């Protein structure tokens, strides 16, 4: 196994074959994606887009990701919306997260509600026209898509895990599916369930991490586009297993924002998708769709 740090998280890689060489290529893929898609780097292409005051000619990579993001916005009826960058910045999340680094005594002035659907994508000219108040944050979807791209460097079975957004190719070294332990959101040292995954991705959304203090309130990074504020949902955590990491990340966020009942309905309509939802209040996790459950922790 090899590990490196990128996108403000620990990336772990297990690969068959020349693992060191594969790890170097995977690390280069992450570095390139971070240079392009980070909203915290002044010189990134995304930052340039967020500063642009007119039509912005995007690289093929950025334009493709924005196009896919738009499709996810439509698929989730706007619950997944990369235009929450302004709301996050208002809350103080305007730099890479670190414990205590975002704490502040007062919130900034609220920004006008922003919708990604107001961003115009011209496929002919490959230009992006962004209303001034819309600031795009591609954090989760960019990480998921980077994992998906990095998986192409694997020459055989292997796994790439970027801080909980992971893709598992083929079978694990033991000859079975890769065992994915789902962290207990109420106690990070515990595992709430273990599922077996092969040739699929997994991603988890929860408000238990990336929390900071604004005046007397503790906030988290999962913004509900309907309120432009941190979500108040009856779920503690949503884990989704999907054909791609990018999709798993989007669906986990959406299910988390929808809550237990609507989240279940939303996920049950997606073929080839499984999920483990953890309700707030200490109830047992419930499983949706195609999930190969191996262990469930005692309540």
């Amino acid at each position: 196994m090899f590990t490196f740090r990128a996108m403000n998280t620990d990336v772990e890689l297990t690969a068959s074959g020349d693992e060191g060489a594969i790890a170097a290529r995977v690390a280069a893929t992450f570095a390139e994606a971070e240079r392009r898609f980070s909203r915290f780097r002044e010189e990134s292409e995304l930052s340039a887009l967020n500063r642009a005051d007119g039509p912005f000619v995007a690289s093929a990579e950025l334009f493709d990701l924005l196009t896919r993001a738009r499709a996810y916005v439509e698929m989730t009826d706007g619950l997944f919306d990369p235009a929450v960058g302004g709301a996050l910045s208002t809350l103080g999340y305007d730099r890479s997260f670190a414990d205590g680094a975002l704490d502040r005594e007062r919130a900034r002035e609220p920004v006008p509600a922003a919708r990604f659907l107001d961003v115009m994508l011209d496929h002919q000219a490959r230009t992006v026209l962004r209303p001034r108040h819309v600031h795009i944050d591609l954090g989760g979807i960019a990480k998921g898509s980077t994992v998906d791209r990095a998986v192409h460097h694997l020459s055989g079975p292997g796994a790439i895990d970027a801080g909980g957004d992971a893709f598992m190719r083929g079978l694990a070294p033991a000859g079975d599916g890769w065992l994915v332990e789902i962290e207990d959101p109420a106690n990070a040292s515990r595992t709430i369930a273990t599922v077996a995954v092969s040739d699929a991705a997994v991603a988890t959304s929860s408000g238990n991490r990336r929390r900071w203090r604004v005046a007397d309130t503790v906030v988290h990074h999962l913004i509900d586009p309907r309120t432009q504020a941190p979500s108040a949902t009856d779920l503690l955590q949503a884990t989704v297993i999907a054909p791609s990491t990018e999709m798993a990340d989007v669906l986990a966020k959406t299910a988390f924002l929808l809550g237990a009942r609507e989240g279940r309905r939303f996920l049950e309509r997606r073929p080839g998708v499984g999920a483990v939802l953890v309700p707030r209040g200490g109830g047992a996790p419930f499983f949706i769709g195609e999930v190969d459950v191996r262990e469930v922790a005692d309540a």
Partner: protein
Amino acid sequence: MIVTTTTERPSATHPPAARNLRLYLIAFLATAYLLAWWLFGGRTPASHSDRFPAEPAPETSAGARVAAWYHDIPPSQRPAVDLPAGWHIADRTAPASRVIRRDAPVPVRASPARAGRIRTRSS
């Protein structure tokens, strides 16, 4: 007496000999153009090391170099360079490849807690 009449066809703009000459001329010019393109313009691009030969910079009549790779200058004499974020100083031996990969993280080998297991959490 039999009289035959023939409808006079408009004569060709160029007689056959002139037309052949023109075709030969076009073929000759096209061949010359392709030959020149192959010789001077269409060859495989030189590699980075060909395009950036690692040879000493030209010298002035006084013997002082007019250009040098940054890393060839003794550290104590290197000028302070304030680069924009994301820019790097190229290296003389591999000007492009090293620049591209300089900020890529270096993976390190680690021992998995348990092989074949992944832990997912909110990221």
